[in-house]
C-alpha cells in the first residue's frame, strides 16, 4: 500500500482546522480582497511598480555551476530572476486568532515552495524571494488564516500577542500600525510592517465575530477546546515527549 501523507491527529475542531490549513489539497477560504499594490506598501521592501532588485544574475544566463540538485529542483520565479530574500512577519493573538505560529510554520512548508520560516511564541516570520513573498503575503492576508483584529503584520516590535485586546477588540500594538475605523467598522493599516507611515490608510476589512473565530481556530484553550479532551492529540504529543525525553535525537533507538 502506498504511503498516504498525514497532517495532524485528532477529531476535535482545532485538530480538524490544523489538518485543513496544512493540507495543500484544501483550498482555504478567501475572506477579503487586498490589492497587490497595497500588500507591497504594507511589506515596505520596495515601492509599488519599482523594479525588483537582484542579488545574482538570472539563472537563464547559465553562470551557475553544474550540479545534480540544480537539475532536480525547478526554481521558483524569484530564484530564476535572482531576487533578494525579503520577509513578512505575522503576530497571532492568543485570543482565538485563526492560526498560531507553529501551525503557520507547518502550513507554510506544506503549501509554499522556496520558503524559510522562523517560529517564536507569538510571531512567525517567512523569508522568500521578493516576488514570491509578495504573492504569498497577499494570499495569507486574504485567506482565512488572517483576522484583521487578532492578526498583525509586524516586522519589528511584535509585542502584543499575549496582551488583552483593546476596547475595539484589536490586538495591542505599541507602534499602532493599524487603527479601528469606527465609521466603516473596519481595520486600517496606517503604517507598514516596520511602522513607517503609509501615504493613505489601507483597509484589511472587518474583523470576524467571536463565534466565527472559535469555529475557525487552530488553538487549544481551556475556555475553548481543551487539548486534554482530544485523546489522539494527547497520545501523539505524549509519545513525542516520551521519545524526546528518553531517546533525545534517536527516537528510532527506543524499543516500545
Amino acid at each position, binding site marked *: 500500500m502506498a504511503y498516504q501523507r498525514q497532517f495532524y491527529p485528532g477529531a476535535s475542531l482545532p485538530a480538524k482546522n490544523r489538518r485543513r490549513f496544512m493540507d495543500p489539497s484544501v483550498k482555504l477560504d478567501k475572506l477579503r480582497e487586498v490589492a497587490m499594490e497595497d500588500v507591497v506598501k504594507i511589506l*515596505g521592501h520596495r515601492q509599488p511598480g519599482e523594479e525588483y532588485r537582484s542579488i545574482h544574475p538570472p539563472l537563464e544566463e547559465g553562470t551557475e555551476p553544474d550540479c545534480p540538485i540544480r537539475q532536480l529542483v525547478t526554481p521558483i520565479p524569484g530564484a530564476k530572476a535572482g531576487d533578494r530574500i525579503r520577509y513578512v512577519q505575522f503576530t497571532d493573538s492568543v485570543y482565538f486568532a485563526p492560526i498560531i505560529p507553529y501551525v503557520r510554520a507547518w502550513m507554510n512548508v506544506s503549501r509554499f515552495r522556496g520558503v524559510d520560516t522562523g517560529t517564536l511564541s507569538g510571531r512567525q516570520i517567512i523569508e522568500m524571494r521578493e516576488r514570491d513573498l509578495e504573492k504569498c503575503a497577499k494570499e495569507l492576508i486574504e485567506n482565512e488564516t488572517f483576522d484583521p483584529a487578532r492578526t498583525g503584520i509586524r*516586522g*519589528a*516590535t511584535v*509585542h*502584543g500577542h499575549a*496582551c*488583552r*485586546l*483593546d*476596547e475595539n*477588540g484589536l490586538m*495591542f500594538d*505599541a*507602534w*499602532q500600525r493599524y*487603527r479601528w475605523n469606527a465609521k466603516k467598522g473596519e481595520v486600517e493599516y496606517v*503604517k507598514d510592517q*516596520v*511602522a*513607517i*507611515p503609509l501615504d493613505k490608510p489601507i483597509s484589511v476589512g472587518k474583523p470576524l465575530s467571536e463565534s466565527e473565530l472559535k469555529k475557525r481556530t487552530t488553538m487549544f484553550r481551556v475556555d475553548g477546546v481543551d487539548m486534554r479532551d482530544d485523546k489522539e492529540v494527547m497520545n501523539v504529543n505524549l509519545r513525542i515527549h516520551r521519545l524526546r525525553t528518553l531517546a533525545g535525537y534517536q527516537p528510532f533507538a527506543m524499543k516500545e
Partner: protein
Amino acid sequence: MPKTPVPEAIPLPEVMIVPSRLLSAGTTEKLLNKIRRVKHVRQLTVSGEDLPAGISWGPGKGLKVDHDERRKIDYGGQEVELKVQVGRVFAEIDDIDSVKKALKEIEAICEEMLPFGFQLEVGRYSKYRPTVTDYKKRMR
C-alpha cells in the same frame, strides 16, 4: 519615586481593578475621575502596556509613533500625560475599616464603565517600605 520614600506605618490596602480589555485613554480618564471621588480613596496608580513616544530602533528609528491612546488626560482638573494603555488600576484605601464600602462603590463604577468585564481584588500590590534593592541603590 522620591529619593527618601516615606514608609507607611501600616501598609494600606489597595483595590486592584483588572479590566478584561486594555482601556482607551478616554475610558481611563472617566474611570479614574469617578473612582477618585469615592470616599477613602487615597491615591490611584495605573499600569499597563508601554506606549513609546518614538521608534527607537529599526528602519523607522527616530519617527514618532503618534499612538491614539498616548495623550494628556484630565485628572481632577490636573493634566496628566498617559504613557501606557491601561490594564490595571490600583486604588489605595486610607482606612482599613472602609475597604468593603469603597469596594462596593468601585464595583458599581466598574459595572457602569467597563461593560466588557473586569475583576476586582483587595490586597497590597506595591511596596510600602524600602526593600533591599532600595538600600543597594542607596535610596535609603
